[in-house]
């Protein structure tokens, strides 16, 4: 056996590596592993974004519908917390891998090119130069994260100083019929008047503008992110790619329209507090 090793120690080549490598380090410590994390958490967050939008759209069905929906979510109790922690975990991992990947990418090229890309076949420039959405993922992502924080403070933690309306969302509650305003409601006991919060919140033009911009960025982010997600997870190929790209664009556009329809409708007076 020793003799054989001296002739051809070939089998040792990968072994040291394989031993030090387990599934978890493979995921967290390698480029491709972190791309999976990115893609999987991205997919989860996309799911949340879709569900959240569908929930929000209930505002068009009137105060009873959306307030009842909110109350049902609240009633989930511990499950809600599981979901929240899961969501938070995904956000954390998504941002962590994004920052890690971005810093690696910066280190991988420390000297930029002097000349802007001007290929001899000018029409190929669009293929050669990375698209806007792809180049700005980290920025769109971080702005969206900042917005999400604001959005939580605005509607979830109901910090009165930042809503721009001279109102305290903490005082918006409804009675059991989900419509009648309730004075002196208590958090966790009475139903929150989500409808009134939405309308009051978006009546402030600056808040609505920030919201629209953030949703716009989210959609730019998704237009690249959704398509890249399929690639990172290894699902993409030349036959499916056009469909995946269309899906990414289409889903982004629908999400944009779905979300901004609410502040626009509020500002335009389609949704009012009766």
């Amino acid at each position, binding site marked *: 056996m020793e003799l054989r090793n001296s002739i051809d120690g070939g089998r040792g080549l990968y072994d040291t590596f394989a031993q030090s490598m387990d599934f978890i380090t493979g995921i967290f410590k390698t480029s491709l592993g972190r791309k*999976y994390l990115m893609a999987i958490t991205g997919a989860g967050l996309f799911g949340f974004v879709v569900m959240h939008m569908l929930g929000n759209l209930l505002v068009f069905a009137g105060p009873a519908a959306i307030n009842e929906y909110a109350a049902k979510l609240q009633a989930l109790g511990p499950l809600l917390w599981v979901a929240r922690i899961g969501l938070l975990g995904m956000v954390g991992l998504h941002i962590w891998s994004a920052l890690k990947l971005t810093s690696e990418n910066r280190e991988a090229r420390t000297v930029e090119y002097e000349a802007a890309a*001007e290929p001899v*076949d000018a029409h190929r420039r669009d*293929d050669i130069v990375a698209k806007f959405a792809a180049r700005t993922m980290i920025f769109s992502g971080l702005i969206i994260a900042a917005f999400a924080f604001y959005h939580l403070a605005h509607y979830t933690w109901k910090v009165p100083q930042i809503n721009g309306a001279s109102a305290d969302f903490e005082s918006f509650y409804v009675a059991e019929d989900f419509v009648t305003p309730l004075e002196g409601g208590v958090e966790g006991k009475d139903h929150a008047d989500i409808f009134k919060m939405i309308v009051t919140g978006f009546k402030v033009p600056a808040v609505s503008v920030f919201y629209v911009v953030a949703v716009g960025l989210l959609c730019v982010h998704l237009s690249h992110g959704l398509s890249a997600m399929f690639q990172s997870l290894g*699902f993409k190929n030349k036959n499916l790619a056009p469909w995946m790209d269309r899906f990414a664009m289409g889903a982004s556009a629908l999400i944009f329209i779905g979300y901004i329809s609410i502040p626009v409708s509020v500002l335009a007076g389609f949704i009012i507090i009766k």
Partner: protein
Amino acid sequence: MDLKLKVWRQDNAGDVGRFEEYQARDISPDMSFLEMLDVVNEGLIGSGKEPIAFDSDCREGICGSCSMVINGTAHGGQKGTTACQLHMRHFSDGMTITIEPWRATAFPVHRDLVVDRTAFDRIQQKGGFISVRTGSVPDANAIPVSKDESDLAMDAAQCIGCGACVAACKNASAMLFVAAKISHLSLVPQGQPERERRALAMVKQMDDEGFGNCTVTGSCEAVCPKEISLDFIARMNREYGRALIKKGTV
């Protein structure tokens, strides 16, 4: 035609480097880009200056030596073409052409436009092979390979290792190169026994060399002289995931 060249000059890896400007006169449209540089270099030597150092060998688009970013575009931007096969008929009289080396931390500059691409070799050394000893092999027709798989393997295998993918990627990612290698060897039946180990080992080395990550911009595919498809990166991602699941818990 006459052209103005703005060329990156750097004496050695430690030098900070700078751009210098030269005139290229009486350039024929039938010259290749590198022949145009030859002409400029002959002039530089004649006037007592050192010529522009650049890599080239086969000058027929297959060895992968030539490596320069021409007007911000790796290999100049003609479809499926290396710098050595790019001809001056694609440029116009009076133009200014900026020429820079591949820019990547993993490809340090040796001199002027010459960079060190041994990182690619080291990735290959970790797993870019099928372990067969000379002589200990079955008859070539003993293992049939479907034509489709074989053709696809060839699509990947024709990578010339020039590094244009790294040069063009905004993240200096080498994933198109590594994906081509992993895909080629995982597509042929002979490559199956080492499939997982290969994917794990090559990806690890790619990371250790300091290449960036793929953000699916497609720039690599667009400048690749062999038009290696982005699909192979998806395939590598699959291979790697498969390897992690099968081998990662060893």
